[in-house]
């Protein structure tokens, strides 16, 4: 293959992946103009790209698909599930064509083109007839693209108001500020055009005219945007078109942006702090006034406040919960597509779809799960012939299962494939210089190797598992969510990859501890027990501290060593046992302060690279503590040479 073809294929694959993602998005969330336009652009770019590289079959195919999407985005045809299904199918064929190019062939897409043509003939839809004449200034209209003009017409015919917002920024750093404004505008309506301008702008600055639609009246918007806002077309009430009777209209459900719920939780978190302050005042009053009726009253009121706050909090948390079936549905699609690509037949079963998880975490866990599923299809499940030879059913099996365990949700991906071949893992690890030759590692340690950046047992990068994303990224992502993973595997029988996540991240209970002059929060969900110990009882095995906890040698990590500051020199100390199963360690701390409910705030971009912390939290009297990212500390601790050395 020519090196330029390699570049073409890499970019084409990126484009197709993006188009696939966007298709899933509009299939689930409906045809949002931005999404449809982005899919149109994907095929448009692919057409230009394949044309430049002389792959006529792909150019023609993407041109035909682009035309359908152009009609859709310009409102010439109507959106339907059938259309999305059709596009999914054709997307697979484009992938097939690219695959052929990769193997040195040249695809013949004539049959596809005929099929697309006849499909397109069967489509029809509303064409916007709204005229813009007299409604808008010519200077605005002449710079709009055809698509933007169409969106403008559609919005006006739907009765939305059309507004013009003018913003001026420093030329050197306009992008971030502009993106914020664009986000605000998109939150209120549809951003139609972002037009840069230097008219009436000081040198060194740049102006942007944002043209957008919004159903809200000018008065309401100008309160928010101020004088920079101009009204071009007034919003009006449009008589609703008669629609077929839908059960949905009888539903009392409302859709709420998760950010709004976050804000409510933040307020509750702050109220919790206020409540603690009231309690403190009550304590001080009791010391000076004794158990007077007034003091008891304050206590009672505070207790009632506490109960109400807890109720409120659990109600909001309940609203944030979504059934895991939503994630499984998306995984199911991914599995279908990957199986097709990999040419494997898989029987998929799902259990526990009704198990609930916080919406934010549900969104975040999808990427890691997709990666795990891809691994199962690509590395786990054998080819039909190989399975037949091993006396297995020709069809492979993948089971997705979710269930609740205490304050956690466990999601399992189980396959009945070939299992992890540890001999091969070790060979590769020795080859890569990760492990010394002849070393004997425990199973847990060998599994750890799989999570080392840059490790892969595959000789070449596989089509299905994708490029450049390793299990280390899966682990980091899970750890960022306060979650962790576990693998059970048996050679020839299959592998079960389980992901454990806290049910919610929004408000957590944490144990406040002291090390030297510093205090830290440790999420209670990560702690299995605490123990007061005599420091001289700590033993040293192969250069690392361990503690004999009921006949089990528990690795101990001193937080003062991890973060490099002075701890107390006392003989009495505490260990906080964190982690689960074989991944348990003891954290050595000087003092335990007790439990506290905290709202974790992110450390911000500036401190993002600092390892070992999940965020910061306020704990009364404006004190701020850092909250430990237990999973990353366990990881670091188990990874240290002293531990892996054999």
């Amino acid at each position, binding site marked *: 293959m020519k090196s330029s073809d390699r*570049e*073409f294929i890499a*970019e084409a694959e990126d484009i197709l992946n993006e188009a696939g993602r966007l298709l899933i998005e509009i299939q689930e969330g409906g045809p949002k103009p931005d999404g449809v336009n*982005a899919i149109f*652009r994907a095929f*448009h*770019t692919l*057409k*230009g*790209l394949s*044309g*430049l590289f*002389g792959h006529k079959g792909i*150019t023609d195919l993407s*041109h035909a698909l*682009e*035309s359908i999407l*152009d009609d859709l985005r310009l409102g010439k045809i109507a959106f339907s599930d059938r259309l999305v299904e059709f596009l999914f199918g054709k997307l697979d064929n484009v992938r097939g064509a690219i695959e052929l190019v990769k193997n040195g062939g040249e695809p013949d897409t004539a049959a596809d083109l005929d099929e697309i043509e006849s499909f397109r003939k069967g489509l029809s839809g509303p064409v916007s007839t709204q005229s813009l004449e007299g409604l808008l200034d010519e200077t605005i209209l*002449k*710079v*709009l*693209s*055809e698509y933007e003009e169409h969106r403008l017409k559609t919005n006006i015919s739907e009765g939305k108001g059309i507004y013009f917002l003018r913003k001026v920024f420093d*030329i*050197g750093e*306009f*992008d971030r500020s*502009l993106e914020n404004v664009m986000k605000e505008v998109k939150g209120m309506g549809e951003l139609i*055009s*972002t*037009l*840069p*301008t*230097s*008219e009436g702008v000081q040198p060194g600055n*740049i102006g942007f005219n944002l043209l957008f639609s919004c159903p809200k009246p000018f008065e309401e918007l100008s309160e928010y945007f101020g004088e920079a806002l101009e009204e071009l077309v007034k919003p009006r009430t449009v008589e609703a078109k008669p629609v077929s009777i839908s059960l949905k209209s009888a539903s009392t459900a409302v859709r709420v942006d998760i950010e709004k719920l976050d804000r409510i939780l933040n307020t509750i978190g702050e109220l919790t702090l206020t409540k603690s302050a009231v309690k403190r005042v009550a304590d001080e009053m009791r010391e000076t006034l004794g158990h007077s009726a007034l003091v008891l009253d304050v206590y009672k009121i505070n207790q009632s406040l506490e109960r109400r706050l807890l109720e409120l909090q659990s109600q909001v948390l309940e609203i944030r919960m979504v059934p895991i079936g939503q994630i499984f549905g998306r995984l199911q699609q991914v599995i279908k597509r990957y199986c097709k690509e990999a040419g494997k037949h898989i029987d998929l079963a799902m259990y526990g779809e009704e198990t609930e998880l916080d919406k934010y975490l549900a969104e975040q866990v999808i990427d890691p799960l997709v990666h795990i599923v891809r691994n199962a299809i690509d590395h786990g499940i054998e080819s039909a012939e190989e399975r037949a030879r091993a006396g297995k059913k020709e069809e492979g099996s993948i089971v997705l299962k979710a269930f609740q365990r205490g304050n956690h949700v466990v999601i399992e991906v189980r396959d009945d494939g070939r299992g992890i071949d540890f001999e091969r893992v070790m060979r590769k690890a020795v080859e890569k210089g990760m492990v010394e030759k002849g070393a004997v590692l425990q199973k847990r340690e060998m599994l750890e190797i799989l999570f080392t950046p840059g490790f892969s047992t595959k000789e070449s990068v596989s089509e299905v598992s994708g490029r450049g994303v390793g299990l280390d990224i899966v682990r980091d992502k899970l750890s960022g969510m306060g979650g962790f993973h576990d693998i059970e595997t048996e050679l020839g029988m299959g592998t079960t990859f389980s992901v454990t996540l806290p049910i919610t991240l929004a408000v957590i209970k944490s144990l406040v501890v002291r090390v030297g002059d510093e205090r830290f929060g440790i999420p209670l969900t990560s702690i299995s027990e605490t123990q007061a110990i005599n420091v001289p009882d700590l033993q040293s095995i192969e250069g690392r501290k361990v503690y004999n906890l009921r006949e089990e040698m528990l690795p101990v990590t001193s937080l003062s060593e991890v973060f490099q500051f002075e701890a107390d020199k006392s003989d009495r100390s505490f260990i906080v046992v964190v982690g689960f199963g074989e991944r348990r360690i003891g954290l050595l701390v000087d003092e335990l302060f007790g439990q506290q409910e905290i709202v974790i705030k992110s450390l911000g971009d500036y401190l993002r690279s600092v390892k070992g912390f999940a965020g910061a939290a306020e704990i009364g009297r404006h004190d701020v503590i850092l909250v430990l990212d237990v999973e990353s500390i366990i990881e670091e601790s188990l990874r240290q040479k002293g531990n892996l050395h054999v």
Partner: protein
Amino acid sequence: MKSILIVEDSATTRSLIRAVVEEAGEFETVEASTGFEALKQLPARNFDLIITDINMPDINGLELINFVKTDSRYQGIPMIIISTEKSDEDRKRGIAMGASAYITKPFKAKALQETINKVLTA
């Protein structure tokens, strides 16, 4: 040496355009992968030519042309549109706004080189 700004969101196409441009003569090329990036590059040097795609995220090629052609500092810089035949309507609008020429994707290296030389000597 004359300097040329290439605005194109596809990395592969961009480097291809760059290679063709550099073959056409002694040019210094600067690449921008989005309209925003192009806006940031503009004040940095005196460009002799801008080659732009139309369909791009953030701001599109037409919005970029309008900006350049209405700003007294830049309006003298000739612009060439490179786009696919799908956006015929948009290409007409680009020319109406003051772009000097358009090239259809897929383009022949020679056609682009000739257009560049023609536009620069006009």
